[in-house]
């Protein structure tokens, strides 16, 4: 069994990795320095090819977005005047950086949409696409409320972050969190990560950073509309949209009943009319 492995994560993340426990990422954007070590580590470990995007014109962000071959993406937001008192500082007032990733939602819209069972929930409560099963129907792509998962044009399958499923199996924490030099990306069991994140927000508030809030932790923005929690959750310092996150995502499956019910009811009404009109009248 792979779980006899040395459990390196005990030393790098302060946690063992056991099946049956829920794991996730806490991305504390208040300490992200935009080094992109997570992007590189992810590409290297998962052997993801580079993309040719050219210059985007978006601060230091030429990665632009997550894709089938980019599973970590560091956003750069230069704010010249964010201060609520309206004072324009001499230098730029704030530079937000944030490493985006698949949220490993619970429940996960991509998984609930997948018709083949290729997308499944692992023993670590993460969400993974099985490449030997996916047939490239693409239904997970519009299902995702965060624009994460995508089809790859080369192999015709859906791809996204696996939270390094292979590493977790071997007792290693994910490549991105291990390499993060500021601990902006923290990996761990959710029952430890969530309280730690709540404490972090409280201490930031104490220090006067009142903009700080959690996104995706249970009961917070991002965990809305039937999505109970994002196993990869964030500490943000501005509106979610600023980071390209939706303020109030919702679980698509909850709309099935509305659409199908109304459709069938309308159909039945017209069938009734047809019963009256067709055949031998009078």
């Amino acid at each position, binding site marked *: 069994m792979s779980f006899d492995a040395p459990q390196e994560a005990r030393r790098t993340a302060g946690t063992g990795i056991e099946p049956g426990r829920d794991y996730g990422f806490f991305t504390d954007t208040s300490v992200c320095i935009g080094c992109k070590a997570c992007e590189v580590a992810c590409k290297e470990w998962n052997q993801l090819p580079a993309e040719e995007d050219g210059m985007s014109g*978006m601060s230091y962000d030429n990665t*632009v977005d997550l894709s089938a071959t980019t599973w970590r993406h560091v956003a750069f937001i230069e704010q010249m005047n964010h201060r609520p008192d309206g004072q324009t500082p001499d230098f730029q007032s704030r530079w937000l950086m944030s490493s985006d990733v698949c949220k490993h939602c619970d429940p996960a*819209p991509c998984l*609930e*949409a*997948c*018709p*083949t069972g290729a997308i499944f929930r692992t023993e670590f409560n993460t969400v993974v696409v099985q490449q030997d*099963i*996916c*047939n490239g*129907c*693409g*239904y997970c*792509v*519009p*299902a*995702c*409320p*965060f*624009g994460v998962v995508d*089809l790859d044009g080369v192999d*015709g*399958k859906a791809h996204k972050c696996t939270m390094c499923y292979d590493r977790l199996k071997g007792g290693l924490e994910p490549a991105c969190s291990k390499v993060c030099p500021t601990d902006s990306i923290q990996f761990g069991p959710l029952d430890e990560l969530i309280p730690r994140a709540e404490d972090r927000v*409280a201490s930031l*508030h104490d220090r006067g950073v*009142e903009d*700080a*809030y959690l996104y995706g932790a249970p*009961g*917070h*923005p991002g965990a809305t509309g*039937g999505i109970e929690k994002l196993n990869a959750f964030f500490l943000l310092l*501005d*509106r979610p*949209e*600023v*980071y*390209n996150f*939706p*303020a*109030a995502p*919702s679980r*698509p*499956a909850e*709309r*099935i009943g509305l*659409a*199908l019910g*109304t*459709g069938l009811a*309308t*159909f039945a009404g*017209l*069938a009734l009319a*047809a019963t009256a*009109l*067709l*055949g*031998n009248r009078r």
Partner: protein
Amino acid sequence: MTRRELPDTWRGESYYGQPPLKNPQWDWKVSGYIAIAGLAGAAQALAWIGTRRDRDAFRGARRNANLIGLTGAATGSALLIADLKTPRRFYNMLRILRPTSPMSFGTYILGAFGVATAVSALGDISALRRRRAVARLADIAQAGAAISGAGAATYTAALMAATSNPYYAAAPRGLGAQFSTSSVAAGAAALALGERAGGRDKSAKQLEEVAAIAAVGHVGASLVAGRSRRAAGVERAVAGSAHKSEAADLLIAGALPIAGYALNRATGGRAPAAAVVGSLALIAGSFVMRHGILNKGKKAARRPDAAFGLAQPRNLPGTDRRRLGGRL
């Protein structure tokens, strides 16, 4: 206590205007499939109703519905498989049945429709029909094709509404009504064309009446759906193309067929060509409408104003829109 509300209100911020959502690779093959499944499913349902009411008068319509059903199930499946990016694995659709995925349960609805239609079509082969058991079986299968046909005509609305695409998701009920009315209209129109071609004017006229009622219903459904999308702040983002394709929809699948049928009726049946034009317009309209919705959604998903506009707390299910007004 950590703050659980969002800072301030959304003033249209975005990340450099980058698209918040991704689109599927879906193109005309998917919208075409949706229209075909709707037309074929509704044709079977209407033929079954006609057969129940007057077996002899609807023998021809029944045969045509079986043919339409067989062709629809075959081309529909072919389109769906062609749309896969790894088509040789199409059979993986049958690995599981997932009630939260219309893509999954829809596969079984389409499969059931194809099988029921094939068995029902056995009853159209005169050598076989003479055996009582076959005739009975075909009758039962026809009922099955009618029920699964209703499913095939409407589940596609759930398929689109159960996404995070702002245009598809903003009006789940409206979309359901749009797809089912358009399906019944196109199905009735297709059967009516067959009846006209076969010289069975009486059943043709009856089917045209059904088609006209469904077309009126479709106009209503489209207006209601448009209102929901506007209320959710989605329509604005695609306004230009939305107005154009909404107008095309109301014209091709509404005004034109209704006028054609009315003209034929007003002249006491002396303008069958107008009715035929009306039927053709309804069928064309059912394709145009599906394709228009598909494309507007693809556009909306790439626009922060549409995607973020829908994903605001005031649009969450169970939130009373009136109470929150325009404040959030």
